[in-house]
C-alpha cells in the first residue's frame, strides 16, 4: 500500500496520509482524466504489470486500483 500511496500522492499532489480506499475522482479535485492515465502509467512501471483497456476505463477510485492489482496477483 505504501508504494501505491506514494504514486497517488505524487500524481495528485495530496498528502499520503489523506489517501484511503474511498479516495476517488469524485472527491479529489486534481484527479482528472489525464491524471488517471498517469496513475495507470506509474502503477504499470512500479508494479511491473499491464492493465487492459477495460480495466483502465474503470479506474475511478483507490479501491478500483487495489481490486485490479489484486486480480493481477500483486500483493500490496
Amino acid at each position, binding site marked *: 500500500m505504501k508504494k501505491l500511496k506514494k*504514486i497517488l500522492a*505524487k*500524481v495528485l*499532489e495530496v498528502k499520503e496520509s489523506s489517501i484511503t480506499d474511498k479516495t476517488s475522482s469524485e472527491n479529489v479535485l486534481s484527479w482528472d*482524466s*489525464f491524471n488517471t*492515465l*498517469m496513475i495507470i*502509467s*506509474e502503477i504499470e*512501471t*512500479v508494479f511491473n504489470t*499491464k*492493465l*487492459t*483497456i477495460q480495466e*483502465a*476505463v474503470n479506474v475511478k477510485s483507490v479501491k478500483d486500483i487495489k481490486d485490479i492489482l489484486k486480480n493481477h496477483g500483486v500483493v500490496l
Partner: protein
Amino acid sequence: MPDRDTIKNVISEAEPKTIGDYFLLDKKIEEIKKNQEIESESLFKIAILFSFTAKGIKEAINVECCKLGVIPEFFAGDYKQYAQDILNKNSELYRFKPNVVFFFIDIKSLFGENFFSPYQISNEERKRFVEEKIEEVKKLLQTLSKRTSAKIVFHNFEVPCHSPLGILESKEKFGFIESIEYLNSELRKFIKLNSPIFLFDYNSFSSRIGKDKILDHKMYYLADMKIGMEYLATLAKEYLSYIKPLLSLSKKCLVLDLDNTLWGGIIGEDGIEGIKLGPTSEGMPFWEFQKYILELFNRGVILAINSSNNPDDVLKALREHPYMILKENHFASMQINWNDKVSNIKKIAEEIGIDVSSMVFIDDSQVNRQIIKEALPEVTVVDMPEDSSLYLKTIMEIDDFNTFSLTVEDTKRGQMYSAQRERKKFQETSGNIDEYLKNLNTVVTFEKVNNFTIPRIAQLTQKTNQFNMTTKRYLDTEIKNFSENENYFVFSVKVEDKFGDNGITGTAVIEKQGKEWRIDIFLLSCRVIGRAIEKVMLARIIEQAKKEGVKTLIGEFIPTAKNSPAKDFYKDNGFKLAEKKEEFQKWNFELSVSNFNYPDFIKIKNEKA
C-alpha cells in the same frame, strides 16, 4: 543569474524516472519561474507543434533543459490546430517568436483512412495521394521557415512493420509501406536544400526503442497518445541535440585517457605487444572505438590525451602499434605524465586555447571521473561502462558535438592544430615576439560576406567565446539578412602563414548609422589570437569608414565569463570610453582626430571586398 541557479539546484539533484516525476519537477520549475518573474526575453523559446496529444513532452523537455541550465518558455499549440498555426500569419505561434520548433505530424494523422485501409485505393491513386501529401507538408515547412527565424526540427514518418497484404506487400507496384518510405525520402531531399529545417529521424528513433513498444495501444485509444508515456522523456532527451548547438552549448574537444580506454591493458606493464587492440575479440572493441573517434576528429572535434604514463611508452605505441588508428598528429595536446588529471585538463585547455567547459572527458576509471566531476563540474564526464564491448555504443550516443553546419574549417581543424603545435615550437625558438610575428609571414585575406562565407561567419558568432567583443550569436539566416542590407558592412578574414592555412578565423559586422558606424560583432577565433590580426581588422574598418566619410566609429564591449582576452582592445587602440552602463561599455573612435595603420609585417589581400 540567481534565478537560473535556483532552478538548476532544484533540478540537478533530481533524477526523474517516470513521467510522473517529470510532471512534478515541471510544476516546481514553473513555480520558481512565476515567483522570480524572470523576463520573458531571457528565456529560450520552444514551440511544440504535434499532430497528436503532446502532453508530457513539454514537461520532459522543460526538465531536461533546466538540467542544462537553460530555462525555456513554451508554445504548445492545440494538436488539431498545427496547420492553422502555421498558415495564419497572425497566429500566436509567430507572436511567440520561437527559437526552435519541434514539428511532428504522425503518419496516422497524415494518411487518415488510407493508413487503416491502404488497399481501398489503387497503386496509381496511392501515388497521387502521397504526392499530394508531400506537397502539403512541404508547403507547411516552407511557410513556417519563411515566417520565423527558428530552427525547425521536422520528424519523418514511422514506417509500419505490418501490411494487410503480408508477404505480398513487396510485390506491389507502389505498396503501402513503400509509399511511406517514398514520403520519407522525398522529404529528406527537400530538407537538404532548406538550411533552417532539420530532420529528426523518428523512424530510426522508434526502431531503436522498438516499434512494437513505442506505441502504448491502450493510451492511444484512451487519449490519442501516439508515444507511450515511458518514452516521452527519451524523446525529449534526443531533442537536446538540436537545442545545445543553438545555445552554443556544444563541446569542441574530446579528452581521452589511454590505458583501458583507447586500448585494453596497461602500456607501462603489458608493453606494446601486450595491449589489446586490433582484430581479436578483446582488441576489437578498442579498435572500433578508435575508428569512431577518428570520424569525430574528421568532423572537427579536437582530440587531446590525459594519461598517467611514461611518455616514451605511449609515443612508441602510437607510432609503432600496427593497429593504432589514432596517431600523434591527431592530438592537439598530449598530457602524458604523472601529474593529477585535473591539472592536466587545465593544461590542455591552455595549450589549445579553449575553455574547460568545451570539453568532454573519457576515462575508464570511475575514480578519475569523480575527481574531474568534482573539481571541474563544467567538463562533461562520460559515464563509461565497465564492459569495453559497450564503449562504441556509449560514444555513439554522445550528443554534445553537434553543430548546425560543417564548414571547411571544421574538416581541416585537425591539420590546423598540428600546424599550431609547430607554430608554438617556432615561437619558442624565436628571440622575441616581434621577430616571431614577422617571420611567420602572415597573409590576411579580407572577403566581403557572401553565400559561401555565411555559414562560417554564423558559426564563428555561435562558437567564439574569448576574443569576442559582444558575444552576440547569429544564425545563418540573420547573417544573410545583414548581407542583403546596405546598412551593414560584414566581412571575414582568412589567415595564412608559413605553417599553413587557418581558414576563416575572424569576422566583423558593422552597422552603418549615417556618420556613425557601430561595430556589432568583432571577433577572432582563439587559434589566431595574439598575432595582430585584430589590428588588421580594425585598420580595414577604419579605412572603409574614412572612405565613406564617417565621423565616429563606435565599439561596444559586453563582458562575459570568458571574453577577458578582448577587454582592453578598444582602450589600447585609440578608442575613448563614451558610456558605461553596468555590464555594457561604449567606446568611440573619432576618425578626424585619430589615425590607425595596418601593422607592416602582415600582407593584406582583398577578395571581392
